[in-house]
């Protein structure tokens, strides 16, 4: 065992471990929240915006940078839209505090 480890191998290690973490965490998600799970994973996968920023921020403003900038815009839709819509849904799942007598209760 001599020499440096190929970075791709290190990435592979990270990948496999992350899949394991994802697997175990997601099995614990309650089925009632499967739709918010989809929208929040959607927002998380738009972390691809990181790659897009790197592409758009290239020193030479060429076709590749434009392409990257478009990708930034698309991913930004998802980042904001994904987290906001998840928030909106989760607000609905908030436990309703037993408010003052609800209408119809005394009927």
């Amino acid at each position, binding site marked *: 065992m001599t020499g440096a480890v190929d970075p791709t191998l290190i990435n592979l290690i990270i990948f496999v471990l*992350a899949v394991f973490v994802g697997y175990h965490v997601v099995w614990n998600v309650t089925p009632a929240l499967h739709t918010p799970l989809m929208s929040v994973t959607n927002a998380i996968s738009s972390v691809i915006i990181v790659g897009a920023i790197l592409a758009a921020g*290239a020193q030479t403003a060429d076709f590749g940078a434009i392409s990257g900038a478009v990708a930034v815009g698309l991913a930004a*839709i998802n980042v904001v839209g994904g987290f906001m819509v998840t928030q909106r849904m989760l607000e609905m799942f908030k436990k309703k505090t037993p408010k003052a007598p609800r209408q119809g209760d005394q009927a």
Partner: protein
Amino acid sequence: MSANMAVLGYLIASVCFILALKGLSHPESARQGNTFGMVGMAIAIVVTVAIVAQGRLDLILLAMVIGAAIGAYAARRVEMTQMPELVAAMHSLVGLAAVLIAVAVVNNPSSFNMSNPMPMGNKLELFIGTFVGAITFSGSVIAFGKLAGLGKQFRLFSSAPVVFPGQHMVNLILAIVMLGFGGAFFLAPAQPWLPFLVMMTIAFVLGVLIIIPIGGADMPVVISMLNSYSGWAAAGIGFSLNNQLLIIAGSLVGSSGAILSYIMCKAMNRSFFSVILGGFGAAEGAASTGGEERTVRSGSADDAAFLMANAESVIIVPGYGLAVARAQHAVKELAHKLIAKGVTVRYAIHPVAGRMPGHMNVLLAEAEVPYDQVLEMDDINSDFGTTDVVLVLGANDVVNPLAHEKGSPIYGMPILDVAKSRTILVNKRSMAAGYAGLDNPLFYMDKTMMVFGDAKKVVEDIVKGLD
């Protein structure tokens, strides 16, 4: 910003994303989880912008502002019944972004700290990221069209399976050709545009072809699958850019989507493969009906109101029909009235009810139904035997007792055991068969009463009948 600082920032962001998913294990902790997710994303973006800070930021900031505005507008405006469409649309954006990044990499690898021409390993990763991204994009567009009911405007969006002879063969050949061009891209010298673009185009076409044969009620599987793909696309791009945050976040999402697909397939007792091959419910439609004319007992909303008002316990089984009719608020009103009369009301949710995982739960939550009244199939199935009245709203296959009969196409599918309860009320628009194209013996039972009509209208009428 130094590379080490950046990677540490990415580590914090990754942990935040894991906490975001972990929070979803309970409705109470979920909002906190979502906040973690937002914090993680903010860190990731700030760190990355700092990395490119000596470059040109104007384009990036402009794109972010425009994107954020569109995203915020969509998230505020969307109705809960349109959630599946929104999710499909968002998957397509991730896919397209992955493809665009790949284009930028091919255009100038050196701006991503790669040697030019690209090393073989990076090319392989880029190839995987590109074709998964492209399939995610075009597949999600088709899924969006199907979910939004655009079939009338454009046939590929038809919610019925679109099949043609030799379909699977065409897909297989295209896939092989795509891999071939991928190989050419892999082996080509500098700037391998031609094989890259051909490979990308074929992947776009493939995405369309693999989703069109899949019918409406299989959408929960498709949408989870595309969810998974969008994650793998991000991970693939992460490999080619040597960016660990993309790899981690991508794999979290990829495995989440894969688990959801698995749960959905299991809830239909179908293999993932059979769903993907598609065409279900298209072929056997007419053939499987029993033949002899059977009569159903149909009643009015007032009859239904009378039965429910005199029951001790009621279970409501919502299905896609509830979403179509947007009847969730009316249903909540009904439950409210019944509870005020001392009736126990609960909701039973089948995992594949609706068009996406958890669809019914969100609709009921929107109508402010407390989540502890809403039970999953496994938790409530044993209670049907002791329930006085079950109200089935726009669900069909998920309550079809044929699932217990050997030889039926849906044999073995776990169902809600509605047939065991004392009285069954079924609301449907007509006697049309469900997605599986099967007749439903439940409708012909002596203790079943059909209430025909639009779910919202019928439920509102029942509410009036209770007064």
